[in-house]
């Protein structure tokens, strides 16, 4: 049952060294504030799961939180590389990073299977691709009805999933709206779920088939306005595309990156002290 906690307590209680941790949100609603708190708490040896590592995993990897990454597309969308991710993969800096690499289709299906309590997902995927040669988790299975060979991948079942959402009601039910990505699946597939929200409201005030996560499938909720910045919250604030472009120069250089993280994350005065909703107007 969802407990309302402060962000640092929610992370301290639910994210431990060595855990498999998913931070999902497909471009939209990326839980940056929660990722920053994990960095501040100096978690180590995490296995990180995200379809699109994005800036948040670039930051966590660059700060040494991760020993393994499961992902399907590791770029800065529309801009270029994730330099901290590349530095880890190409040069083992700041630490070697094992990678387990999928396609989006397979990752999406692995989330679906995780939410569905299945050990594996089956898909028409990876035909002719070299990915199965480098990822031992991509196998084949034969359909007992048609004899077709289909791809199989293990379900995603992290220790903890963290997502950001628009709002919770006071009972702890959470509404996600707009580009909903794989957030419902990530929450349902995990042993524990932590959700940051823009605000807590009396009534979710929504429509019959909205994407609502009931309080009883959530462990902790932390109210963090702007917690998805520089990604966005549909109905609250827009994606800061300018910052995504600026990140390229910040992350390209190890020292510049370290300084930026020190100033903007480690020594941030509030859980999410970067320029955000207020400044992005």
């Amino acid at each position, binding site marked *: 049952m969802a407990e309302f906690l402060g962000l640092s307590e929610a992370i301290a209680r639910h994210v431990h060294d060595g855990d498999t941790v998913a931070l999902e949100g*497909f*471009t*939209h609603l990326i839980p940056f504030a929660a990722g920053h708190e994990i960095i501040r708490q100096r978690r180590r040896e995490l296995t990180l799961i995200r*379809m*699109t590592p994005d800036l948040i995993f670039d930051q966590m990897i660059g700060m040494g939180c991760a020993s393994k990454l499961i992902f*399907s*597309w*590791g*770029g800065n*969308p*529309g*801009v270029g*590389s*994730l330099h901290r991710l*590349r530095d880890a*993969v*190409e040069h083992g800096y700041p630490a070697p990073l094992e990678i387990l*690499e999928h*396609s*989006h*289709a*397979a990752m*999406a299906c692995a*989330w679906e299977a995780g939410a569905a309590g299945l050990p594996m997902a089956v*898909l*028409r*995927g*990876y*035909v*002719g*691709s*070299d*990915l199965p040669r*480098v990822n031992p988790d991509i196998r084949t299975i034969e359909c007992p009805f048609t*004899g*077709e*060979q289909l791809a199989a991948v293990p379900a995603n079942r992290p220790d903890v999933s963290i997502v950001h959402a628009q709002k919770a009601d006071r009972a702890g039910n959470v509404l996600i709206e*707009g*580009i*909903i*990505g*794989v957030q*419902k*699946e990530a929450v349902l597939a995990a042993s524990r779920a932590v959700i940051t929200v823009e605000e807590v409201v009396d009534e979710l005030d929504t429509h019959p088939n909205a*994407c609502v996560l009931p309080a009883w499938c959530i462990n902790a909720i932390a109210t963090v306005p702007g917690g998805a910045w520089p990604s*966005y919250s*549909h109905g*609250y*604030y*827009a*994606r*800061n*595309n*300018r910052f*995504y*472009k600026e990140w390229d120069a910040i992350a390209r250089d190890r020292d510049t990156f370290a300084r930026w993280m020190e100033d903007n994350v480690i020594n941030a005065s509030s859980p999410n002290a970067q320029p955000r*909703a207020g*400044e*992005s*107007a």
Partner: protein
Amino acid sequence: MNASPETSSDSAHDYTAAEMMTVTASRALGNGTTCFVGIGLPGEAANLARRTHAPDVVLVYESGTLQTRPDILPLSIGDGELCDTALTTVSVPEMFRYWLQGGHIDVGFLGTAQIDRYGNLNTTLIGDYREPKVRLPGGGGAPEIATNSRELFVTVKHSTRTFVEAVDFITTLGYGRDGRARDNLNPETARHMGRGPTRVITDLCLLEPDPDSRELIVTSLHPGVTREQVIEATGWEIRFADALATTPAPSTHEIEVLRELKKRTDHHHSGTEASGERSS
């Protein structure tokens, strides 16, 4: 917003090779086609098509945005603009399972870092997998967009860095190392596999697979481009079709619409977005 019909006689006098590429790529998309738009260049072409000759092209993005009509070019495939203007937005598992794998996509439209003689794409890395020289973003939606769409269009700038004899890594299947990878499949699998890359649009030319060997050959040169330029920019011994065409130049209207779209987009992305801002 319906575009006025293009008038091909009215060619633009002044356009760049990149614009030529985008316009040619956009023309490949028929009106009413369902198109799964990959990250990067395809988005520009697909949205130009929607604003010119194909007002009813159906654009689908991997973020779950179905039949979207963005007013500017999104920077990512999950910008808020895509959701705001979509018919509806579904979950990412649903997008890949029901809409792509379920067989509802006519054209997958991808960019790439490398492409080879048989239309295989590499967006994973340069060098060896365990010791990469350059680590690229990876597969994303591409591997299944390429096999589960009825056909695949690719658009990419032409150079020996991109057009290589054999890709370092097959992220995404074209026709395989020998051009035969889409043959002799289980019939049920074959029924669900698309035809593969049927058009590759570059800033120099249009390439299509040879019907027999599946090797990419140049079928049309863009205006003013020479065979030598293409040969120099290609990492294998490129062949030209017997009936080599000249690609029609962009119309003034197409160039105007494209520039206006890019201007609006640049303006938008230079700051943070104003739309979707909370009023408080």
